[in-house]
């Protein structure tokens, strides 16, 4: 029995990575849920919007690095992030002008808008590959660890290491700032309130003199900012690859739907739920149980419930169970 080492192992391999991943998913899901609340369709191009924002940020990072600018221990990408956000905002606003607005005026059914967003997804995917290629790109620089595995072991004398990467802490801090700013904006400012009104009841909002085009434009800008931030944080934490970002679409949608589409709080909860479930089910728990079990009872196998490649299955299973038993999501979303 060695509960302290078990706890450290659990923290190191499950809790910390899942928290960072959950924050990234939550930011992505917030963007999806916001677009759903205002424009009332599931945006399949969201993963590729993230990829685009990250690609521009990487270009900016390279530019800054070659100019010799750095943030010291922090990754340079944080300096380039505003550039990425601005470029992505311009891109999605342009897309809205050129593509989505036509269908909005026509009052096309949501399914048509989803198909349209598939076309946008193709274009953005091609655009990203055009800009930056298909390779794996690591762009994290600065200090790698806040607490390194060896440092922790030496400081505490425990058998198990505990490592906290800079990117993980940055993810949490940035996500917390972004979420706080978003909720302040939605609850306290005039524009934010008009957006919530528009999302709750479009006709009533129009009658009250809310300008729909303005609401839509603001929603796109916020979604672009959230998507770029989520993408950059994910890229710092792991690495950037165009195809991986497209695949993130599934857990992000799962998070948004599980939390209740259109509900920002739900998106955050859903993001963490999906992330923890994915990591817990696919992580071999042998070490943790080995410390907890009484002598001689240590598990022989890896105690890995599912292999890592089945992580999609986890988000999907949660999604199906929630949809079957609580179709509006855990928090009440606007399900039509």
């Amino acid at each position, binding site marked *: 029995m060695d509960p302290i080492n078990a706890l450290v192992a659990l923290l190191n391999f499950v809790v910390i990575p899942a928290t960072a991943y959950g924050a990234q998913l939550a930011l992505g899901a917030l963007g999806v849920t916001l677009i759903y609340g205002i424009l009332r369709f599931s945006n399949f191009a969201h993963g590729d919007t993230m990829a685009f924002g990250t690609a521009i940020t990487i270009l900016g990072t390279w530019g800054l690095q070659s100019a010799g600018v750095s943030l010291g221990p922090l990754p340079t990408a944080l300096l380039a992030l505003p550039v990425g956000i601005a470029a992505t905002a311009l891109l999605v606003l342009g897309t809205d002008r050129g*593509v989505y607005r036509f269908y909005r005026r026509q009052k096309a059914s949501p399914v048509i808008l*989803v198909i349209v967003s598939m*076309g946008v997804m193709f274009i953005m995917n*091609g655009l990203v590959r055009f800009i930056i290629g298909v390779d794996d790109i690591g762009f994290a620089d600065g200090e790698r660890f806040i607490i390194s595995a060896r440092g922790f072991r030496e400081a505490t004398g425990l058998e198990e290491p505990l490592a906290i990467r800079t990117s993980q802490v940055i993810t949490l801090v940035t996500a917390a700032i972004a979420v706080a700013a978003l909720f302040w904006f939605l609850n306290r400012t005039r524009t934010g309130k008009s957006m919530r009104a528009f999302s709750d009841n479009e006709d009533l909002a129009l009658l009250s003199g809310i300008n729909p085009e303005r609401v839509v434009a603001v929603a796109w800008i916020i979604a672009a900012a959230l998507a770029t931030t989520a993408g950059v944080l994910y890229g710092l934490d792991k690495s950037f690859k165009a195809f991986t970002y497209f695949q993130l679409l*599934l857990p992000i*949608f*799962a998070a948004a739907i599980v939390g209740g589409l259109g509900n920002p709080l739900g998106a955050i909860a859903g993001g963490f739920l999906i992330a923890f479930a994915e990591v817990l089910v696919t992580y071999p728990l042998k070490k943790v149980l080995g410390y907890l079990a009484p002598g001689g009872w240590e598990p022989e196998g890896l105690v890995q419930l599912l292999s890592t490649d089945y992580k999609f299955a986890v988000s999907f299973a949660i999604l*199906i169970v929630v949809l079957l038993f609580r179709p509006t999501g855990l928090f009440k979303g606007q399900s039509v």
Partner: protein
Amino acid sequence: MTRGFPPALLFALVAGLFVATGFMQSWNVSLTILNMALISAIMALGVNIQWGYAGLFNIGIMGFVALGGLAAVIVGMPPVGDAWAAGGVRLILGLVCGAATIAGAMLAWGAMAPGRRRTVAMLVILLGGFALYRFVFDPAKVAVEAVNPANAGYLGGLNLPVILSWPVGGVIAAGAAWLIGKTALGLRSDYLAIATLGIAEIIIAVLKNEDWLARGVKNVIGIPRPVPYEVDLQADPAFVERAASLGTDPATLSSIAVKLAYAGLFTAVLLLILLAAQLALKSPWGRMMRAIRDNEVAAEAMGKDVTRRHLQVFVLGSAVCGVAGAMMTTLDSQLTPGAYQPLRFTFLVWVMVIVGGSGNNWGAVLGGFLIYWLWAMAEPMGLWLKSGIVSTLPEGSWLAAHLEDAAAHMRLLTMGIVLLLVLRFSPRGLIPER
């Protein structure tokens, strides 16, 4: 565009594209594209049955195509006797345990009264069944995968003629679709979309990881062919003589002959499915499906069982995709789970249906040919375009070097633009539904 072009003219134009490819590049290239286009047309028919007839938004096509491919392995490959001896029976037993667990849990859910006792019973059945499944299954899996892992490491197939795998692929895909449809078809359109997208990813993950089934990412290669091999043709004196009389070398002619043989088989299947789809669409059943699609509430009020009809059409469409998947794996003679990508196997098929004209079988087929041709040719066309631009740029310009790499990514961009243009200016497609 209110009336559109006459369909015959459009088909002639697309045929012209393939002929032009034959003259400008080579007949070999043109036939390669044609064979995949025939398969794509069948996939598009499958999607059209689901979306065009019934309005079901399924974006898990890739999964059904991959299941069809699995059928080609299971039917065509010879069995691996050692693997069966090492743990084949125990492995099957393990799978049965897993299935029985799920069935038992569902039975308990249905039979017991709601409450805490039911929840506990469910959990006990599920956890106990999972442990039992892993206990029976895991050693057998390890034993099977340890048998000659470089060449086998899986159970192998039934060693039957591979052409049988086409209907079998349809049946496997239909079975999977039935299971999926039972759980997911009650969801509204965009939830169904996400659900099917997820299922397709899971099917690919299973194919990639379950080595005992089809060797996972080690790929199954050398699946037997339904047509002669080029080498055998070249060794045949009569064939060499024929090549000489036609004025080509035997190597080129043999590869063209093999591709033509495939094209013949695929055309037969395509015509068969097209005929069946047309008959179904024109029958009372087809009219009922369209009525349900256009107004579910009204159809239900008329006494139509919407849920069952949706399940039916979902299974049928998926089966068609499964047949196409088995044909594709047969054509490639190999199953490579890593090659299945949703952009290529799900969304591209959707582009075919929308561009061709959803709800119209001829439209779907036309879309299949046209879009696959465009997909295959976008890269060479991108290269031509690039060399045109590069020649105007100064030597060693960074843009020239960048364009060099980027030409390969032209196809996604092209597809997106084509899809958006069609949706915007001709939303009913090239051959609209009548």
